[in-house]
């Protein structure tokens, strides 16, 4: 499988990515969890949102260095993501996928990129801390400007409404029903 190298700020190129594509991402991204999303909604986005990428992550930072920075569960931000996309954000990075509402909000605008859960050391090795906003929210909840160097990601939700997680969940449901129904019939 080919790997597409992407750089921020993202352009309309992301509209051509397909769910299941592997990419690497370089350039500036901005971390944000629950508190940061709420603050940005109230007080404004502290970075240029045009083509920007938001990373769902609460890093461990010590002495201006990133020690560990794996992804957090994106679903917590389902209801807080629309305004970012309305303002021009074109990429989200996280783990576990997002709701149908966000899948629809991403249509013709941007993509959701999955990063491997727990890979905090790998992530930190490919990141440089470049600045921070809203640091009063605390280390995990602040908005950190981080420069990425070829972070390996998978397009999990594309700009055409395709969602890898949804397909997998549907299939798992079918397999479960099939396996345990068949088993019962054998017993009968």
């Amino acid at each position, binding site marked *: 499988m080919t790997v597409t190298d992407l750089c921020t700020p993202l352009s309309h190129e992301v509209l051509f990515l397909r769910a*299941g594509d*592997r990419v690497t991402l370089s350039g500036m991204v901005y971390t944000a969890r629950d508190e940061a999303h709420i603050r940005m909604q109230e007080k404004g986005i502290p970075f240029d949102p045009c083509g920007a990428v938001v990373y769902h992550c609460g890093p461990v930072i010590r002495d201006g260095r990133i*020690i560990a920075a794996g992804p957090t569960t994106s679903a917590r931000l389902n209801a807080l993501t629309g305004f970012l996309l309305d303002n021009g954000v074109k990429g989200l990075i996280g783990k576990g*996928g997002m709701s149908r509402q966000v899948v629809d909000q991403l249509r013709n605008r941007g993509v959701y990129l999955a990063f*491997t859960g*727990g890979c*905090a050391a790998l992530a930190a090795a490919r990141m440089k801390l470049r600045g921070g906003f809203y640091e009063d929210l605390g280390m995990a909840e602040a908005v950190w400007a981080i420069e990425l160097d070829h972070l390996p990601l998978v397009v999990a939700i594309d700009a055409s409404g395709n969602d890898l997680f949804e397909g997998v969940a549907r*299939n798992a449901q079918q397999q479960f029903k099939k*396996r345990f129904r068949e*088993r019962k019939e054998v017993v009968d």
Partner: protein
Amino acid sequence: MISPTDPALLSAISKATCEALKQAEIFLPPDVVGAIRNARDCETSEIARGELDNILANLKMAEDLSVPICQDTGVPVIYLTVPPDLPVTNDLFEAVNQGVRTATDTVPLRPNVVLPLSRENTRDNTGPRMPDIHVRPGEKLSVTALPKGAGAENMSRIHMLLPSEKDQIPKFVAETMLLAGGKPCPPVILGVGIGGTFDGSAALAKEALLDPIDEMTPYEREILAAVNSLGIGSMGLGGSITALAVKVKTAGCHTASLPVAVNVQCWACRRATVEVCR
């Protein structure tokens, strides 16, 4: 009998606790690394293979940089093995607590422990009945650390089955992963406690995670096959390997009950044992 208040002994217990936590956070045990490598070779989905490649690269990076594998460094679950000549006193527990505080500061660990209702962070990963300390009798004094992250722990389940529902156990375990999907960071390891009491089955399920995963009984393999048939795959992106292993532990139970607990563990099955130098 050795005096449990001997400051040198207490300090050695603190040191061993800190060291066990540090080792667990940075290096995965060889049986777990072997199972992840094996999964990488057997996985049929190309996307999932990419995820497993990331996990293997991450393990090497954590080792090279001497940093925690995952930013969720968990809550400290500790198994203390105590030899016959040492009385179990509060001093031993306080020595373990001190080891947790030192590890939090020096590894460093993310301060994850909060008070459950006020959500106030204790800042040093200790608190009321935390670390969670389990004492077992043994020959040598040792500390085993099993730091447990929240993503997988939150997907764990317990169910009081009827004694006639023994055949429903594989279904209950598979259903646990069906509900969890990609949330517990698969490929997972499932600790299954069968029997005992309501709380005892949960403790058994957690203890099962201490057992090496490079061997499984036919029953454990049967449950594993049921889980893997769901196709959830690494990180819920789809694939043939959703769980690396299922480990079962059993205990005697009431003739009218059949408690079953499933403790979900992400791929980072962090555990390390350090003997206390006496």
